[in-house]
């Protein structure tokens, strides 16, 4: 199974490296998003207290929505998703492969977003790199796990572009709360390890539950 997932990931990355379409559009959109927030909220060089955490996560989720939509739109246009599903590979492996592809894209976007938000909002985001990586990773995995399943399901639905965010955001509310609150805790002058541990544990549990559910559901919904 891991071999199939790895092959799908490699295929997605090869396609992406050749065109760079999704990477460029996602990155540019994420940066524009942060700029809009900077224009709206920064007064006299300073953003609102804790604002950086929220803006970082909003940018990640908006950009993630765009990346998810585009990734599966590409598969739909050339009918390759059908080919993938017809291939003698297990459905969960296909799901894991697509999920890994999305994660690579989102982590790449975050690598740019974190310093940008830290700079524009003068936030001490990089003060605790270990916890920041932990919260960003688990939060992104949770968001992408649900997002990959829904985006794959919606490939055959009408008005899929509009439906993806409509379905995705209400379901990922716990990721938003835990991600934003967890990141905001990192911005405090003194790190409260108990609080950050709680948010981290919540995100890990969310990831485990929703990846498991998605692996089971993917098989059921992608079979005609």
């Amino acid at each position, binding site marked *: 199974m891991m071999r199939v997932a790895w092959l799908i990931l490699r295929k997605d990355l090869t396609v992406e490296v050749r065109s760079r379409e999704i990477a460029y559009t996602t990155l540019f959109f994420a940066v524009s998003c942060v700029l809009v927030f900077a224009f709206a909220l920064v007064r006299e060089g300073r953003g609102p207290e804790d604002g950086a955490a929220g803006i970082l996560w909003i940018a990640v989720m908006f950009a993630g929505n765009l990346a998810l939509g585009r990734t599966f739109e590409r598969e739909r246009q050339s009918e390759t998703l059908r080919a993938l599903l017809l291939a003698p590979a297990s459905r969960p492996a296909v799901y894991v492969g697509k999920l890994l592809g999305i994660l690579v894209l989102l982590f790449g976007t975050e690598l740019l977003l974190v310093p940008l938000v830290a700079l524009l909002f003068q936030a001490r985001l990089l003060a605790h790199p270990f916890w920041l990586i932990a919260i960003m990773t688990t939060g992104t995995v949770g968001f992408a796990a*649900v997002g990959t*399943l*829904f985006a794959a*399901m*919606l490939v*055959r*639905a*009408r*008005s899929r572009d*509009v*439906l993806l965010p*409509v*379905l995705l955001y*209400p*379901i990922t*509310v*716990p990721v938003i*709360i*835990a991600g934003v*609150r967890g990141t905001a805790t990192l911005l405090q002058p003194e790190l409260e390890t108990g*609080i950050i541990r*709680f948010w981290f544990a*919540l995100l890990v*549990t*969310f990831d485990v*539950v*929703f990846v498991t*559910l998605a692996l089971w*559901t993917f098989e*059921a*919904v992608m079979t*005609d």
Partner: protein
Amino acid sequence: MPKWFTPVAVMCGAMLAASPLVIASADYESTMGLVQKIFYYHMPSAWMFLIAAMVCGVASIRFLATGDPRHDRTALAAGELLVVFGLITLVTGPLWARKAWGTFWIWDARTTSSLVSWMIGCAYLILRRYGGPGSEKLAAALALFGMANVPFIYISVNYWRTIHPATTVVPKLPFTMGFPLWFCVTTFALLFVVLLKLRVRVEEQQAQVDALYLSLDER
């Protein structure tokens, strides 16, 4: 229609018509006065909201597991009732809260998880309505994810609010469980059953009509 349906529907109608009189006869609550009477509609509809969510979730899981369209029809009917009863709950709640707590909305665990569940219910109906053919399975998966989501929302909001407690102290609600309350709960439960049955029936007949059209085309 099954035999029990007509008597239950009649009884439900009569109880619904009588409920304002029963509520009017209830005692005034000492501090909140008249506004507290919203409670007699608020709580039963909140319970039906919860029950509708559970029926929709369980029926969706069974539909995903078996592929039997009967479960799908039940899930759709329950999904619509979820949105209706959820709307009643979310409108009556803030009206009462304004008087009881001094504010329309507080971000506590129960209100937030209700709001998000209601939004997931709306997303479910939007998907069913605009998703096109084949969206039943997607909607079932959404319902399953929505159910799994509720404990996470509850825990996260609860913790978030405990770290940052609201400045106004939320008073404990008085809980006088009298005859009017249980009268209204029974009324709403009957209403739920009647509406669910009717809605499933409409879907069944729709499926029959579709099947007839298809068999005509084949000839």
